[in-house]
Structure formats: C-alpha cells, structure tokens
C-alpha cells in the first residue's frame, strides 16, 4: 500500500466495533456454516443408518468398493464444480471421458500402456481445449456449446471404435487400478486430484480469478483478469479430469465401451453431486469438500439401496429429492 494516510479528519470510521455491517458478515457466515453443517450432518447420518441396516456396509471391502466406484464421478464432479463456479458449464465431460479412453486404448495397443495412458489424458485436455475455444473465443453459450461438442465427441468415439468394445492388450495398463500399500491407485489419484482442486480454488490467484469471473464477469475484466484465459484453463482442467477418469476406469476391465448413454449418465451423476454439494449455479461460490460430500452422499445412497436389496428405481427418485433439498437450502438461506 503506497498511499499515504490522509489527514485525521477524513478517516470517517475508525472505531470498527461501532460500525454497522459487522453483523451482516457474521450472518452470512452463519448461513454458510449452517449449510456446511447440514450437509455434513446428512453424510454422517447416512453413514450411521447404513452401518445399522447392513452388516456388509462397514467392511473395508465394501467401503473400498464404494470409493473405487466413485472415482470417475468424483474426478469429473470436482472439476465440473470449478467450471460452474467460473460461470461456465461442461456437458461434454462424459463424452470426453469415453473418447479419451478409446484414444488411450488404441494408442496403448500400438505403442504400449505408458504412451496410451498419457495420450488418453492429453486427449482429454485437448478436447477440453476445444470446449474452451468454443465457449470463450467463439462466444457461444456454455450450455449450447458443450452440448454440441458432447454430441460430436460421442459420434467420434463411435466412429473411432467402430461401435463395440475396444480391448486393451497391454496388461501394464492396469497399473492405475492396482493396489499400493493396500489402497487402490485409482482412489489415491482421486484424493490427490481433489486436493489439487481445493488448493487451486482456495489458495491460488487462479482460484480467486475463477470465482471472480463466475461472480461478475465485467468487474473481473476491468480488474485486469483475463476472463477468457481463466475460463479456458478451467475447461481444460475439466477435460483433463475426464481423460484421467477415462483411463482409470479403462484400467480396471481393460475394455472400453463407446456408449453415449454411459457418457450422459456420468455427466448427470457428477452434476447431481455438485448440486447436492451446494455449488451455486449462478457461479462465484462453492467448495470442493462439499462437492466430495455430495459425491459420497449419492454413492452411499446407491450402496445402501444395493445392500438392502431395494429397487434401484427408488434410488433415482431419492437422488432427485436430494438435489431439490440441497438447492432449496441454498436459495432459502440466501434470501
């Protein structure tokens, strides 16, 4: 701060304890705390209910399974949440997931697993770059733009793979779902990626810019923030996570499908987790840990329905209700 202090008389509010507005910040924080609390309480409550209703739930095998099954949705939800906080939207993450897994499989079959994995992830980043170009330089509405690329990438996946499954021949590819110190590598990757996203969001200039752009684009721009670059990086990050999710899942069965139904359900699951995690669709607000809580709540619900042998149809209805509750809390709390 290089401004000198002005003469005493011009400083109007010195006694900040008397200043109105003090409690408003507090009220806002209280609301946020309540939101945080309600989501945590729900997660814990769910955990307890599941532990009580099923003997299998608390076994390490089941828990690890639930975690492993959440990896793809979790990866995509973390970065997809960032896209939404930035005022964008990425409908194409599912299609990128499918297409980059196919690229990884094909490259792996020609050049080996290492190159296959790397090229799958890079393909994700590149496809994210296409979204970035369309939604920034191309000035196309994010929803429309990524819907278009999603359909296009899905078509490309079918064209490249010929429609059926692509099998990965190099067994080294399965390193991504091997166990290390008794924990599945894919879970470690997921945890690491979530940590990186949280760090980016909370502790870096990039994170600040991302929230600024999502909150008020024009104000961000006039503050010297490059709106386009910020959004572009976020879309590429989203592509990266989708590519990563693609290769991780491919490493489990060493077989890659090309169905666009899979792509869509993945995007919607991720979106559901983001919403349950209380990320505001208006942009400018959200937290990674809450997205993770959203992911685990949905995964827990699904696991519970499975373990207790309840018709999955009800699970779908429950997910819908959870989303509505989470969004309603957000809207009502901020009124």
């Amino acid at each position: 701060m290089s401004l000198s202090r002005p003469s005493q008389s011009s400083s109007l509010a010195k006694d900040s304890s008397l200043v109105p507005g003090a409690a408003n910040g507090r009220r806002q924080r209280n609301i946020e705390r309540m939101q945080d609390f309600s989501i945590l309480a729900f997660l814990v409550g769910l955990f307890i209910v599941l532990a009580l209703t099923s003997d299998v739930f608390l076994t390490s095998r089941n828990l690890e399974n639930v975690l492993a099954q959440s990896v793809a949705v979790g990866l995509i939800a973390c970065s997809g949440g960032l896209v939404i906080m930035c005022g964008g939207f990425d409908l194409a993450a599912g299609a990128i997931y499918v297409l980059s897994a196919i690229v990884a499989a094909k490259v792996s079959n020609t050049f080996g697993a290492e190159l296959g994995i790397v090229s799958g992830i890079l393909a994700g980043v590149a496809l994210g770059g296409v979204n970035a170009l369309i939604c920034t330089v191309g000035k196309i509405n994010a929803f429309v733009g990524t819907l278009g690329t999603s359909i296009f990438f899905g078509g490309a996946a079918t064209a490249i793979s010929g429609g059926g499954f692509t099998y990965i021949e190099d067994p080294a590819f399965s390193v991504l779902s091997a166990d290390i110190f008794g924990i599945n590598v894919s879970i470690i990757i997921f945890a690491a990626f979530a940590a990186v996203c949280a760090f980016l969001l909370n502790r870096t200039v990039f994170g600040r810019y991302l929230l600024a752009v999502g909150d008020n684009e024009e104000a961000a721009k006039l503050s010297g923030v490059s709106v386009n670059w910020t959004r572009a990086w976020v879309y590429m990050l989203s592509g990266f996570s989708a590519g990563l999710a693609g290769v991780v899942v491919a490493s489990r069965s060493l077989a890659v499908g090309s169905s666009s139904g899979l792509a869509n359900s993945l995007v919607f699951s991720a979106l559901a987790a983001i919403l349950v995690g209380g990320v505001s669709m208006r942009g400018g607000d959200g937290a990674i840990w809450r997205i993770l809580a959203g992911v685990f709540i949905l995964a827990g619900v699904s696991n519970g329905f499975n373990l207790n042998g309840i018709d999955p149809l009800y699970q779908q209805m429950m997910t819908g209700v959870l989303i509505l509750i989470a969004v309603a809390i957000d809207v009502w709390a901020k009124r």
Partner: protein
Amino acid sequence: MTSDIPSNGEIISAVSVSKNYGATRALNEVSVAINPGEVHALVGENGAGKSTLAKILAGAVEPSSGHLQVAGVPVRFVRPRDALRAGIAIVQQELALLPSQSVIRNVFLGLEDHRAGILVESSLRGRYAELVRRWGFDLHPDMKVSSLSIGDQQKVEILRALARDAKLIIMDEPTARLTTPEAGQFHKMVRELRDQGKAIVLVSHFLEEVLRLSDRVTIMRDGCVVRSSKAEDETSATLVQGMLGRSIESTFPPRPRASLFAEPRLEVIGLSGKKFSDVSFSVRSGEILGIAGMIGSGRSELLRTIFGADRAIGGEIRFGTNVHSGFKSPREAIAQGLALLPESRKDEGLLLSQTVGDNIVLPHLRDHVASAGVLSRHRQQDLVNNSIGTFGIRCAGGGASMSSLSGGNQQKVVLAKCLLADPKVLLLDEPTRGVDIGAKRSIYELLFDFVAKGGAIVVVSSELEEVIGLSDDVVVMRRGQIAGRFSKDEATEERILAAAFGTA
C-alpha cells in the same frame, strides 16, 4: 429535537421502527410521518439507514420492531404489493426495469388488461396515452427501455408508480445518476407531482437540491432520526452539522495548482471508438482533467477505450514513453500503471457476493498478494485493513460481505481497489456517485494527495460542481466529440452547459 409527529392526516408514518440485520441496527426506534402533498427529504451519511427506512415504508423490507400506520391505524406491509395497495410506490436506488421490453410493458407490468388470460393490448395504449398526457411526460410507448437515457428510464419507473395511482412516491437517490440539466428537469417534475397532490419522499446527498425542493427534512444518523423539521428552518450548514455531528467548511479541500512544466503522463491523439471520434487531450503529472457532458455523450466509452476494455477504432495513445493504438486489455493497462474506476459499481466494479477484502485486492493479487500464484492471507489482510482505514469504509472488516454495505460504502471500496497499486494515471467515471458529503470531501483529499505526488487524473462527472471544483482543465463532450475546452479560470457552469448542449 423536534420530532413532532402529527397523527392522522398522514399518508403513512413509522412508529418506533427498528431494523436489525443480524446484530447490526440499521434503524433504531425511528418515527417519521409523511403527509399528503409534501416533499419529504431524507438525508444522512452513507449507512445512516435512509434506504432501509425507504424500503420499510414501501413494504420491501419488514421492520424488526415497531410498526407502520396509515391515518392512525397500524398496518403491516409484508410485500411491496401491500404498500402499493395503500398507495405507496418506490423508485429504488438501482432502477428495477425490464431492459429488453418496451416502455408500455414496463409501465403496466402486473396491471395488464386481459380477458380470460388473453391480453387486451389496445386498452393499455389508451391508458398510457391518458397517463402521459395527464402528467406531461413525453415517452414513446414502444421504445425499448435499454435504449433510453437514465433520466428517461427513471420516468418509466415514475410512470409505473403513477399508473398504480400512488399517493406517495419514494425516490432513493434519484438524481445521483443524472446530469445537471437532467436533474433540473427532474426537479420540475417533482414540483408538478407535488402540486397535483402527490407526496414524495426524496433520499438525496445533494443538500442544495434538498433545500430547494423539499418542504420537510428528516436528518438521520447511525440509524436514528436526529430531527425532522421544516426545510425553511434548515441551511446547508445545519444539515451537515446534523448529519455528521460536526461541520465542514467546504466540500473542496484547498489545493496547490499543478506546475505547467510537468511532463505529460497520458496523451490521447485523435482517438475514435464506438461512440466517440477524434478525441484528443493530454494530462500532465500533477494535473486533473475533467470531462463534462450529457449522459450518452461518449464519456464512459472514452475512458473504457483508453483502459483497453473496449477496442479503439483509430487514433493513438501516448502513455509514458510508449505510443500505441490503444491497450489490448485492461490487464495490460493496469500493468502499465493505469487504473479505471468504472461507472456502475454494481455491473462493472464489484463482486457483490464476495467479501470486501477479496474485492479490494482482486486486481493486485499477482503483484501484491501472491507468490508463484499462491496467495498469502497475511499480506491480503494487511493491505485490506490499510485500505479500510484510509478510505473510512464502514464495514465489519475485510471479511464482511460486499452486499451488506450501503451504497456509498460500496463506492469507497471501488475507489480503494483502484488506488491500492499506486497507479500513475487514474481514470475515474463518476467517482463520488451516492457518496455522502463528508466522505466526498475525504475522497477529494485523497485525489489531491494523489496528484500532489505526481499522479494524473482524468475524471468524468455529471456533477458540474465536482468537475469545476476538481479539475485544472475541463473538456466538454457532445455526441462523441469534444465540444469545448476550458481552463480552470474559464470553466463556469454556464459555459460548460452551453458547450454540452451545443448552444455555445
């Protein structure tokens, strides 16, 4: 303290009304009565509670305790519609219009005539014609609201109130965004409304306007009513004394003249953009250049273009030793030492859902807060606390949410944000809009301090007194071109107005 509250006869009165936001008392046991046919002014510092009181009277906010009463009978307004039924309408500080719809649709929004749900357009047109004739407004019903000037948009809001047959129209800082001549028209309109029996509540920081226009003045301070008295019993000095609890000699602090030999800081040569063409001027270090003109004369676009937020079509900018055809982005301009205070704090200046601190440091994260992209909370806190002290921003501290600040305090945050990085040239677009008179003076002191240390300022202002009081030179724009240049000694209100209207 003369708080004479005539019961009965009033359109509405507040009785010991308090409003708490969390633990903050925005209003503390406030009692006022608004009588028919009077212009009742509300004055007070930023954050004194004027807008809060206005919103309570209009049913937009409910009081935490106390009540409203109409003709001696207690009433409760839960939503603005209840107030409208009682004949009370509000024109908010930030206009609330549908920008992409026509004037007539805006005026009759919610009052549409329909038969079994099907709109009957023609009857509306008749009612509109009648309304405009009766009140002497001159606005085409099919104009799109976004294409109207701010003054005309305000008329749309007033028409909307009149269409609902309001007895009382509450106007929150209606002239803050008007140019001097537009404000003159507005004053005429207010008098006409009053002469036809309407009551007006007028929130304003312009004390002369208050004294000239109103019948009764209520002074507020820290959420309390200081006094409510007849306007003729008040003077500027007594109002200021009541509002601030102290007096100030004049709005403009003394200031030495700029030396004529200082080097030019910013030169604009034949610059053209979307809404202006062939504009040239230069500011030297230590100098303040004022730009006057009507709203829509291209002043804001000019500043935005110099700053790199809009593209230049032709011409050159000489900044320091560089000559080029305009900055490519605000980012580049900021890096070179330029800062812009944008015209609309809500649309261009602030992130309303983030904290005061995050807003202030946003443009300076890379250079002053972060190392290698990672933020330092300590550094941010120091910078922010410093700014809050320097600018006298009334808030709970750097962590307070931006949307909890009053209008004037938000404006101070935008200014703090601009000045934080020690820019070389400041581009200011309406720097004191909505700022109270005490804070205005402290902002002027900061600006004079800035130029005394070698900075240069280009300031756009619709307030003639401000342009004249601040500037060494004044440039007047009209329809995107420079229509007059005056030195400090030549710049008078008459000359500037004549140039702005093209009657020079």
